[in-house]
């Protein structure tokens, strides 16, 4: 498994090197290398064990995050990439960031590698103030939090071994910095800077246990859920400054991470949905948040109380706003073949989220059963109608056509 980890980290670098040698193949080399890296990380994720090589390691959460980042680079839009070589370097840096540490995440190593990822992602695309300014501020804030944690505990580890210790303020700074990173990454879907979305979500996930402690931090959860609602409602604004499904789902995931109750697994499902939404950029990708949203509703209802109610209500606003925005979207072009792996993973998330064991314990068995049966029923219905050669509806409209094309005009 150590070899797989080496290959997963090295693949984007090899792709970048190939791009330097043969510039006209740089973009294709970048995508192929990213897909290769995604495959290696996926193998590590399926294996599920902790693999350590030198100062890098892989755990299920690490592998899932890096796999998402690799898929994002594989699906980048041609129009957003000016220098494909740097996109490969950005992916390698993001992979190092999430894998930093021998057996647990090294906070400062992660932030340093993310700084490289921000710089190279900006070089790969067309540098935008709306990307690198929030990303730089987010990295600075997260670094301050990590240094404060180091000062207090003499450890760079994230999360600390003693998550119940009194380090909420420092960890909250890391989560806030990660939120800014995600906002920077969701500036545009399918852009090189999108690698910041899973990387930021990973940073927040690692710091969140120190914020959550025994029963969450109500003000932080409400503020983050409110930010998610604002991001979702902003989908109606023109011109758009964000890819709103990505930003809203990721911020809702952050809110779930620090909300009262057992909300970590739903938060990870929402973060995965945000990453895949960023990779697919289809109007309906907001639907990927359904499993995480449902699991979050169950977890909040089980906890009860005012804060879960407020967070749940804001999550409802997010769902409603994203659904309304998706209905108003115009049809988009057919996704490129590079999006196929992300599409498959999206379908898997939508139909069988309970099998995503890396997110932890989550009560989605009834969801899985229902989704499988619904899918089977829908497929059977559509196939039957196609085989019978019947249109779903409106049969009488064709059975009794107007006598002539001008009949309606004559009638009026």
């Amino acid at each position, binding site marked *: 498994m150590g070899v797989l980890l080496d290959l997963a980290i090295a693949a984007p670098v090899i792709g970048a090197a190939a791009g330097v040698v043969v510039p006209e193949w740089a973009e294709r080399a970048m995508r192929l290398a990213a897909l290769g890296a995604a495959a290696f990380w996926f193998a590590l994720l399926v294996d599920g064990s902790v693999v350590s090589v030198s100062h890098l390691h892989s755990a299920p959460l690490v592998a899932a995050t890096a796999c998402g980042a690799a898929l994002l680079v594989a699906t980048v839009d041609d129009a957003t990439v000016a220098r494909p070589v740097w996109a490969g370097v950005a992916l390698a840096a993001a992979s190092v960031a999430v894998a930093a540490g021998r057996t647990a995440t090294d906070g400062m190593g992660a932030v340093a590698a993310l700084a490289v990822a921000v710089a190279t992602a900006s070089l790969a695309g067309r540098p935008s103030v709306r990307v690198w300014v929030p990303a730089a501020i987010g990295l600075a804030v997260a670094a301050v939090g990590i240094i404060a944690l180091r000062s207090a505990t003499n450890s760079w580890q994230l999360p600390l071994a003693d998550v119940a210790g009194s380090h909420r303020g420092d960890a909250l700074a890391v989560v806030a910095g990660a939120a800014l990173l995600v906002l920077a990454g969701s500036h545009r879907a399918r852009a090189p800077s999108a690698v910041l979305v899973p990387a930021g979500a990973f940073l927040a996930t690692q710091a969140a246990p120190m914020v959550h402690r025994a029963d969450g931090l109500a003000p932080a959860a409400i503020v983050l859920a409110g930010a998610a609602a604002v991001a979702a409602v902003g989908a109606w604004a023109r011109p758009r400054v964000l890819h709103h499904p990505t930003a809203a789902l990721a911020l809702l995931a952050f809110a779930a991470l620090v909300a009262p109750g057992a909300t970590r697994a739903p938060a990870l499902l929402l973060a995965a949905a945000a990453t895949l939404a960023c990779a697919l950029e289809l109007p309906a990708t907001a*639907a990927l948040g*359904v499993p995480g*949203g*449902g699991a979050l*509703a*169950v977890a909040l*209802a*089980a906890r009860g109380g005012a804060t879960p*109610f407020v967070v749940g209500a804001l999550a*409802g606003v997010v*769902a*409603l706003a994203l*659904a*309304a925005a998706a*209905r108003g979207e115009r049809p988009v072009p057919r996704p490129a073949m590079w999006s196929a792996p992300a599409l498959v993973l999206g379908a898997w998330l939508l139909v069988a989220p309970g099998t995503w064991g890396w997110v932890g314990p989550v009560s*989605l*068995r*009834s*969801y899985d*059963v*229902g*989704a499988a*049966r*619904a*899918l*089977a*029923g*829908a*497929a*059977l*219905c*559509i196939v039957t*109608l196609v085989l019978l050669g019947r*249109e*779903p*509806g*409106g049969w009488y*409209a064709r059975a009794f056509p107007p006598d002539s094309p001008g009949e309606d005009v004559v*009638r009026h």
Partner: protein
Amino acid sequence: MLLEPLGPNVRTRAHRPLTTLQLGAAAGAAVMALASAGDVLLLGALLGVAAGDLEAGAASVLAGLVVLGRFGTTSLTALAGAQHVVGPAGTTGPVALAAASWCAAAALTLSTRAGFTMAALFGVAAADVVAGPAAQSAQSLAIRLAGSLVAVALAWFVGGWVPPRLARPAAVLAGTLGVLLVLAG
């Protein structure tokens, strides 16, 4: 003789063909509702897609939240099992919670659209929420059948005769009222 509607708001069984996505969602939701298998929030989302209407989807999900608040689970199987043991949700338990179940059923019934297939789908889903015990005895089966028939008939009436501009807000209102009753109960 050709007749035109008198105004743009006259619904009266106006035919709107279903898209392939709506048809698939309707079939999936029908399987879940008839078999009482799956997740009630997912059922709500599928009903919203089948209806092709945001308010209908919101009302259906609110009905699902009523179930979650009352029974502590989103499993349709658990909902049917609980009703088989303690009786239909609309006639057992505290008054506020029973009323919440009726509100959830009303939200689903009012979310339907024209067409018997859609009325049957939303009606069966509504019956699941308020009188849908697992059919493990003749009595439970009779209750479920009777509840389904009444709910389908009501949904058929609503789909054909109540204008959407009235039915949709009423559905959302009923769902919201149900959630509030569950919270109060």
